[in-house]
C-alpha cells in the first residue's frame, strides 16, 4: 500500500533513506541538502532505522567513510550538494573504481565562486566522468523513485557501480509537493538484503582493496568498469520494469513528451523539464509541433536511444544548466550533438546555457526558445549555436 503525502524533495529523500534502512550513512550538512540529513538524523535518534550515522567532519570524510563502510560489506549511503560534491571529487573516482554500490542523493547547486547556494547543475555535471551512474528527476516523486531503484541498480552483480540521485536545489529540495510514498515493507522487499560477495569484515576470506595498480593491470580494471557501465543500461530498464509493477509509475532512460511527431524539441534535465512541458502544451495549442526529451539517465549515456528519439526532429535546443567553459557549449549539448552526428541526422542542434546560480527560467522563455528553433527551420540559418540565455548584456 502506498500513501499520498505532501513533502519537500529533501523530506521525500529522507523517507526513501529511512525505508531503504542503510547500515551506514556518513554525511555532512550542506545547503540545500541539509534538511535531508537532519530529517534522517531524527529517524536515527528515534530508532526508526538500524543505521549507524557517522557525523563526519567534511564531505571528503563523508565519501571516505562511506567507501570504508561499503567495502566493509554494509549498505552505505551519503548525500551532498555543490561544494560538498566537489570536496568529495577524489573519492568519487575511488568509489566507482573500487566498484562500490554506494547511493548518494545530490541536491544540485551552483559551484563557487562566487559562492551561490541556488540551483544549477555545475556540481553533478563536473562529476559526469567520475564513473558514477547519474539519475535526474523532474520532481520529488521521481527523486524518491530513483533513490529506491538506485539501490538495486548499483548493487546488481553486473553493475556494482555507485549512483548519484540528482534533484534540483531549492526548486525540488525545498518545495512541498504531493507524492506517493511506498509502504515500508514494499521498499524493504524491493531493495532486499545486501549480500556482497567479497568484503572486508569476512574473517574467513580476508581481502585487499585499493592496491597500487600499475601499468600491467590498471587498464584491465578500467575496462571492467567501462563494461559494467554499459551493462548498467539493461539493468536500469529491468529494474524500472519491476518498479512499475509495484507502483504503476514508468521509468526509462528518458521521457519523451509529445516527441513522436515533433519538429522542434527541447532536451532538458530535472525540474526545468516540468516548465518545458507547460511550454510544449501552450505551443501545441497554437499548432506548433513541439516536444521535449527529458533525460533521466545521463550516465550511462543512452546514446543510441536518444539518437533514435531525435532523428526525425528538425531543430533541437539543449538546455544546459552548467557552463563547461570549453567555449563549445555545455556538457549535455556536447553529448547530444555527438550522437546525432553518428546517425547523420538532418537536424540542427543549438545550446542554451541557462539558469546559472538559480536564475529562474519561465514558461514563456522556453516558448521563445521554441520560436528560435522554428526560425532556424524557416531560414535554414543558425544565428547562435550557443546562447547564454537570460543573462543581461
Amino acid at each position, binding site marked *: 500500500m502506498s500513501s499520498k503525502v505532501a513533502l519537500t524533495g529533501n523530506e521525500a529523500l529522507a523517507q526513501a533513506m529511512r525505508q531503504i534502512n542503510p547500515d551506514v550513512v556518513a554525511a555532512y550538512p550542506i545547503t540545500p541538502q541539509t534538511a535531508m540529513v537532519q530529517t534522517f538524523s531524527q529517524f536515527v535518534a528515534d530508532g526508526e532505522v538500524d543505521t549507524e550515522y557517522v557525523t563526519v567532519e567534511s564531505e571528503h570524510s563523508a565519501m571516505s567513510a562511506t567507501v570504508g563502510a561499503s567495502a566493509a560489506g554494509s549498505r552505505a549511503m551519503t548525500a551532498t550538494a555543490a561544494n560538498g560534491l566537489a570536496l568529495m571529487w577524489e573519492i568519487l573516482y575511488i568509489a566507482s573504481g573500487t*566498484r*562500490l554500490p554506494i547511493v548518494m542523493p545530490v541536491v544540485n547547486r551552483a559551484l563557487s565562486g562566487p559562492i551561490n547556494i541556488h540551483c544549477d547543475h555545475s556540481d553533478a555535471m563536473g562529476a559526469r566522468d567520475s564513473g558514477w551512474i547519474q539519475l535526474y528527476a523532474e520532481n520529488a516523486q521521481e527523486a524518491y523513485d530513483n533513490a529506491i531503484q538506485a539501490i538495486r541498480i548499483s548493487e546488481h552483480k553486473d553493475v556494482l557501480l555507485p549512483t548519484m540521485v540528482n534533484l534540483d536545489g531549492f526548486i525540488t529540495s525545498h518545495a512541498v509537493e504531493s507524492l506517493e510514498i511506498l509502504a515500508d515493507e514494499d521498499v524493504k522487499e524491493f531493495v532486499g538484503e545486501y549480500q556482497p560477495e*567479497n568484503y572486508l569484515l569476512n574473517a574467513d576470506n580476508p581481502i*585487499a582493496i585499493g592496491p597500487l595498480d600499475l601499468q600491467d593491470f590498471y587498464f584491465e*580494471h578500467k575496462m571492467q568498469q567501462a563494461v559494467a557501465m554499459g551493462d548498467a543500461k539493461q539493468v536500469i530498464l529491468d529494474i524500472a520494469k519491476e518498479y512499475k509493477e509495484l507502483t504503476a509509475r514508468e521509468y526509462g532512460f528518458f521521457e519523451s513528451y509529445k516527441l513522436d511527431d515533433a519538429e522542434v524539441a527541447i532536451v532538458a534535465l530535472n525540474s526545468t523539464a516540468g516548465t518545458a512541458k507547460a511550454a510544449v502544451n501552450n505551443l501545441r495549442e497554437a499548432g506548433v509541433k513541439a516536444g521535449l526529451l527529458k533525460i533521466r539517465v545521463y550516465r550511462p549515456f543512452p546514446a543510441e536511444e536518444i539518437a533514435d528519439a531525435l532523428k526525425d526532429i528538425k531543430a533541437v535546443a539543449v538546455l544546459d544548466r552548467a557552463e563547461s567553459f570549453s567555449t563549445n557549449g555545455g556538457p549535455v549539448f556536447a553529448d547530444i550533438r555527438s550522437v546525432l552526428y553518428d546517425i547523420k541526422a538532418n537536424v540542427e542542434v543549438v545550446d542554451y546555457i541557462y539558469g546559472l546560480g538559480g536564475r529562474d527560467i519561465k514558461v514563456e522563455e522556453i516558448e521563445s526558445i521554441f520560436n528560435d528553433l522554428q526560425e532556424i527551420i524557416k531560414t535554414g540559418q543558425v544565428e547562435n549555436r550557443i546562447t547564454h540565455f537570460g543573462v543581461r548584456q
Partner: protein
Amino acid sequence: MVKPGDGYKDIPIGGLILDAGNAKEYKTGGWRTKKPILDKEKCINCHLCWAFCPDISILSEDGVVSDQIDYDHCKGCGICANECPVNAIEMVKE
C-alpha cells in the same frame, strides 16, 4: 591468483585481491648484497633480531630462533647483525 597477462574478464573487479598474504610469493631476496649468517653457538635466543627484522625473515619456531633465515625475502639490511647483543650474526658478501 591473478597471473601476468590475464585479461579483464579473468581477474576480480576493481583491483580486489582475494589471496591475503600472497606477497610471500614475491621474492625480495635478490635485492641483497650481503647476507646474514646466524651462529647458533653464540645465539642467546633473545629474539631481538626476530623483532627488528624489517622483512620478517628471522624465523622462530616454538620460541627458539632458527638459523634458517628466510633468504627469499631478506633484503640484507644488516639490522639483525647490528642489534645482536652477542655478535652472533655476521653479514657476508653474496
